[in-house]
């Protein structure tokens, strides 16, 4: 079945091409003959490899997207960015003593933040990047962890930051510190692990493992979820 798909004009390294309008940037570039050896990964908006900057004809605005997700638009000038240089500081999580200025200690350049918001504008995940960098400056590790949760470390904020901060490195340290030292222990997780160790689920597991594929499917479809 051949559908009539409209085409749009895109520009890659300054050269114009006609591509089907229903393709994502990555697929569109492969359509015109580019082969991705770097700058592509999961193709599912999770790994952060395909960070892309683009502009649309007629607008000065510089926009950010993930090439695997963003559909092409007419008049799109595309630049995929396979990597952003960063110096991730070395730390031993087990040895760190959490203090309000711990993030500043490892990343003192956070102090250069101008609150210009360029990082937020560059984020393809629509995260409040400036807010979490400011939270890092204020020593609020939990806030950094929460706001940066969906960060893919794609590199765009670091490339654009005039203060030369690499926000996602700071956020990664914050999330690690939060999880290890600040977050409440999940009591029910601890309990469940203990029960498992004591063999509470051994019999159920043995039964499941002995079932055939069809029997397993039946059991799965009839399952109850008790709240």
């Amino acid at each position, binding site marked *: 079945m051949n559908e009539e798909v409209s085409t749009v004009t895109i520009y890659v390294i300054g050269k114009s091409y006609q591509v089907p309008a229903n393709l994502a940037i990555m697929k569109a570039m492969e359509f015109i003959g580019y082969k991705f050896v770097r700058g592509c990964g999961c193709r599912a908006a999770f790994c952060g490899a395909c960070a892309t900057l683009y502009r649309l004809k007629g607008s000065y605005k510089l926009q950010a997207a993930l090439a695997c997700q963003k559909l092409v638009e007419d008049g799109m000038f595309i630049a995929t960015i396979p990597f952003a240089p960063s110096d991730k500081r070395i730390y031993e999580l087990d040895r760190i003593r959490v203090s*309000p200025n711990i993030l500043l200690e490892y990343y003192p350049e956070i102090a250069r933040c101008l609150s*210009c*918001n360029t990082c937020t504008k560059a984020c393809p995940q629509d995260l409040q990047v400036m807010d979490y960098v400011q939270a890092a400056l204020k020593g609020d590790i939990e806030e950094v962890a929460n706001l940066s949760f969906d960060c893919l470390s794609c590199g765009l904020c670091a490339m654009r930051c005039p203060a030369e901060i690499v926000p996602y490195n700071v956020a990664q340290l914050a999330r690690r510190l939060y999880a290890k030292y600040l977050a409440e222990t999940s009591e029910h997780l601890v309990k469940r692990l203990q029960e498992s160790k004591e063999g509470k689920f051994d019999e159920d597991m043995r039964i499941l493992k002995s079932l055939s594929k069809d029997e397993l499917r039946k059991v799965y479809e009839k399952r109850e979820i008790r709240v």
Partner: protein
Amino acid sequence: MRFAYYPGCTLKTNAKSFDGSAIVAMNSLGVELLELPKWNCCGTVYALAKDDVMHYIAPARILARVEDMNKQGVLKKNLRLVTLCAMCYNTLKRANNGIRGDPERMRKLHDIMVDKEQPYEGKTEVIHLLELLREAGFERLAEQVRKPLKRLRIAPYYGCLLLRPKGFSIDNPNRPSIMEDLLEALGAEPVEIPYKARCCGAYHTVERKDIVVEAAHKILEQAGKMGAEMITLACPLCSFNLSERQGEVKRRYQGFKEMPVVYFTQLMALALGLGEDVCGLDENHVDPRPLLRSRDLM
């Protein structure tokens, strides 16, 4: 009475006692210091270059937020922003001036800020807490004092940015007396030191510690010679330089006697009888408590 209040980064980390004691002390005087619901670093020190726009963004966001709060009915037309940190005070006040006096700059800032918030209209006024106290009258403060400081000899240290440049000074820059008046109201005996407005070395503490050690030594030694038992101030950077750096001063100058350094709001909380716990005196690098206990002030 309620005022919008801007703490600044360091009051949330190294200088929590400054923030905490101020809020509690002012509360007891019937003034609510309402922290801006969302705020960013002010980006101290004030950018002096004439063509600068970038370094005004951070102050502009803060000043615009006060207007926001007012529009939401939280401030009842009181658009004065209270600051505690002398450096934030100076930066915000001068930036405010630099924005209001330059329509071109204001327009550029609008363009940059429009992605996140309403543009700044120029209505906010920046004041320091000491100015507010003077406006209300130090006698009224004195009336609320429950535990007068028993003529403890305290030297006020103004530093640079509360008094300079002239147009932004909170008092007569050559003969300031606002902190002395405050100390009198609290029942202490102010000790005037000629170096009270001499630079502590400020940001040189990061890469030229030697400059700060010399400055701290000069100021503290003179204070001691003039009979001061304690120093009080209004800036977390000055406090770090005069307090935390005393260890280095001792290393360089044998015979140097340590002197406690406290924020003026810690003294206020103490004198207003609000209890030791809210004063945060355990956080001061050179512990003032033995001295206070010896004079029966705790």
